[in-house]
């Protein structure tokens, strides 16, 4: 959502002078600035006290701080240790862009209630076209928006109104708390001329201009445009044009988020599963049809089941292609079967989580009939056994054979698979065992004397393995060949979890080969090379 200031297109002529394009004279831009937004977001997210000293740290340096922290001398760019020295009771929070964006979304949607064109610039800063005519003046429009934001808990928001986004932003920075600063039409250049050169965010550029003796934006704007272009190139030209008040960028509307969620209430509440699934057919068809109207399909959906006394069950379902209405009814049915509601069901809520364009999922010219046949067949089996009994195998990285394979319910997306191409020290070289036991089975390895073979603290064997006894073998068999111990150094950093564990390969008489694990003196078979 962040629109980078310098990358927006500028379409005025570069001839300079005081002649302003007609459009800027008509459109006025309002910028709403919520100072210290990272702090406000952290306060909202972690439930902190807004008046306490708080600093948001990005890569070891203070990125933003609260007013109380600023009073104690904490500044942006200060190192964490220095900030704590200035203010010992400082609450330190790690910076997260995602958190800022997420919390700012509520401000954007609050403003969208007033006006339709909100352009997010970055979290804490957004631009819009001034709805002055409707509210009877620019000051009044600003007051309406300030009131709205204060009502939703944003205590400090400042508004700047000017001919372009750049001027309006700096006007907002000049405004007092919950106040507005209006730059009159055509007054951008005069307003900006007074500001110090340091308001430009490009630090290197500011330092260069300072060394050239340029102290205010007015000094820079007074330079001839072609000299600036020769010396500073296109980025300098852009800044020169902005500080000259020739910023014609206007707030572009962002597309409001579409809401496809559906709710279905049952009155009276339903006791059994079948009528719930049956009654939800129409709602699911409506949901799919609405998505279809926008050319969208849903591949992941959250289904919430609400009981009549407040119980709620929620689960996310994914589909390898996309859901049809019938698939959704199936998922509702499975969810109620797998996680039955203890109370009569009062309602179903459907929230599409992943919505994709149909064009990304379109069927090939020749159709995809075989896959549909497979989907239907698998869905039939899932209906018979439950969704978690029909599985799709896949491989991932890991040390033991059991860790290296993963079975996911058919149709669910595989997530968080470990990378296979990492080295995974301690893994056994191929060939992989054809039988991998879901749970290790206990076994015994004996020496020639008939004593159990142990592994010592130093990782060596107490005696050479001679006899193998497993759950599958009736009698202990002599061991023809063996190799190991291959120590497993998992959890070595955790004194409680650290164990002296090692793997062995063994071939018993008759040709059966095994992968064994020993934990001090207890032996287990993990897999069998069949």
């Amino acid at each position, binding site marked *: 959502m962040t629109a980078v200031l310098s990358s927006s297109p500028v379409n005025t002529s570069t001839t300079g002078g005081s002649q302003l394009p007609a459009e800027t004279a008509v459109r006025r831009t309002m910028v709403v600035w919520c100072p210290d937004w990272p702090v406000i977001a952290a306060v909202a997210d972690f439930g902190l006290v807004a008046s306490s000293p708080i600093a948001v740290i990005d890569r070891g340096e203070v990125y933003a701080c609260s007013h109380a922290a600023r009073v104690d001398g904490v500044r942006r760019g200060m190192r964490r240790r220095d900030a704590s020295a200035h203010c010992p009771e400082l609450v330190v929070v790690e910076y997260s862009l995602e958190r800022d964006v997420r919390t700012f979304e509520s401000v954007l949607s609050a403003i969208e209630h007033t006006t339709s064109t909100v352009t997010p610039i970055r979290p804490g800063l957004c631009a819009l076209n001034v709805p002055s005519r409707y509210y009877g003046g620019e000051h009044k429009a600003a007051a309406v928006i300030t009131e709205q934001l204060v009502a939703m808990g944003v205590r400090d928001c400042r508004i700047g109104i000017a001919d372009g986004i750049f001027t309006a932003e700096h006007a907002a920075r000049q405004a007092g708390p919950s106040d507005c600063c209006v730059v009159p039409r055509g007054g951008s250049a005069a307003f900006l001329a007074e500001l110090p050169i340091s308001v430009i965010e490009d630090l290197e550029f500011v330092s260069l201009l300072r060394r050239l003796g340029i102290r205010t934006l007015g000094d820079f704007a007074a330079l001839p445009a072609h000299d600036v272009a020769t010396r500073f190139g296109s980025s300098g030209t852009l800044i020169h044009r902005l500080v000259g008040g020739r910023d014609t960028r206007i707030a572009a509307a962002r597309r409001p988020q579409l809401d496809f969620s559906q709710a279905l209430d049952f009155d009276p509440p339903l006791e059994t599963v079948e009528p719930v699934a049956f009654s939800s057919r129409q709602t699911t068809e409506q949901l799919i049809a609405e998505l279809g109207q926008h050319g969208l399909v849903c591949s992941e959906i959250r289904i919430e089941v609400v009981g009549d006394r407040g119980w709620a069950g929620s689960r996310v379902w994914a589909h390898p292609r996309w859901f049809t209405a019938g698939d959704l009814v199936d998922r509702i049915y499975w969810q109620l079967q797998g996680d039955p509601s203890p109370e009569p069901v009062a309602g179903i809520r459907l929230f599409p989580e992943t919505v994709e364009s149909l064009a990304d999922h379109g069927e090939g010219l020749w159709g995809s009939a075989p896959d549909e046949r497979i989907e239907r067949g698998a869905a039939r*089996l899932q209906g*018979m056994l439950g969704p978690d009994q029909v*599985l*799709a*195998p*896949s*491989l991932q990285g890991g040390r033991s054979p059991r860790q290296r394979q993963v079975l996911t319910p058919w149709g669910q997306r595989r997530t968080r698979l470990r990378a296979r191409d990492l080295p995974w020290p301690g893994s056994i070289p191929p*060939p992989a065992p054809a039988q991998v036991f879901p749970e290790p089975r206990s076994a015994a390895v004996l020496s020639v004397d008939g004593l159990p073979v142990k592994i010592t603290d130093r990782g060596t064997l107490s005696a050479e393995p001679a006899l193998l006894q497993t759950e599958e073998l009736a009698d202990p068999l002599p061991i023809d060949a063996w190799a190991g111990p291959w120590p497993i150094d998992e959890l070595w950093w955790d004194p409680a979890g650290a164990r002296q564990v090692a793997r062995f390969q063994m071939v018993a008489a008759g040709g059966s080969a095994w992968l064994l694990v020993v934990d001090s003196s207890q032996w287990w078979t993990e*897999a069998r090379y069949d």
Partner: protein
Amino acid sequence: MAGVAADFQELQRRVQRMQGTVVTRTLPSLPGLSGLIRLRTGATYGVNSAALALALLAGPSQAGEWVGVVGAADLGFEAAEGFGIDLQRTIVVPSPGEHWLSVTAGLVDVATVVLVRPPFQVSEHQAERFKSRLRQKDAALICWGDWPRCEAQLSVRESCWIGLGRGYGHLTCQRVRVDVARSNMPSHSAQLWLPDADMEVREAANQVVAINRVRAG
């Protein structure tokens, strides 16, 4: 011309199948197994080893067919991929419980080859009914265990693992003798690498030379 003839035959078989006439076809198999057995649809094959079952599944899977696995909760899928099974086209029902026969029947609808490990004894009657279903659906069944009156019973005998010494090395390849007992033909046996040092299944031609080569490598 050969291509046209093949297309024509394929269409003819489809029409026959729609008309209800039973037609079977030979499924593709791994090159190393082609001398041992060629799987045909409509038939059941018994095996006694997971590795052999995976090798039998690999041929059709490599050729683009779907495969299903029922009741084999301890199958190693890394080994399956090693033999050449495409896990993207594999459906697994590890613990079907008492429904195992209907699950297998359901999987036969969508998959061309299904591997099943029956938790219970299969009766002659069930086996006979299943056989007609396999013919109808144009699929083959591989049973890891006993299946009454199957087309062929493949048993691994004399398995010999190579690469492991007394305290050194690691398993690299396995040499087996597979006995094939057929209902309507004399039984025979073959020596196989399952797999060889390059992770491939192939026939073991000369025992002495092969072992020396691997040991040397």
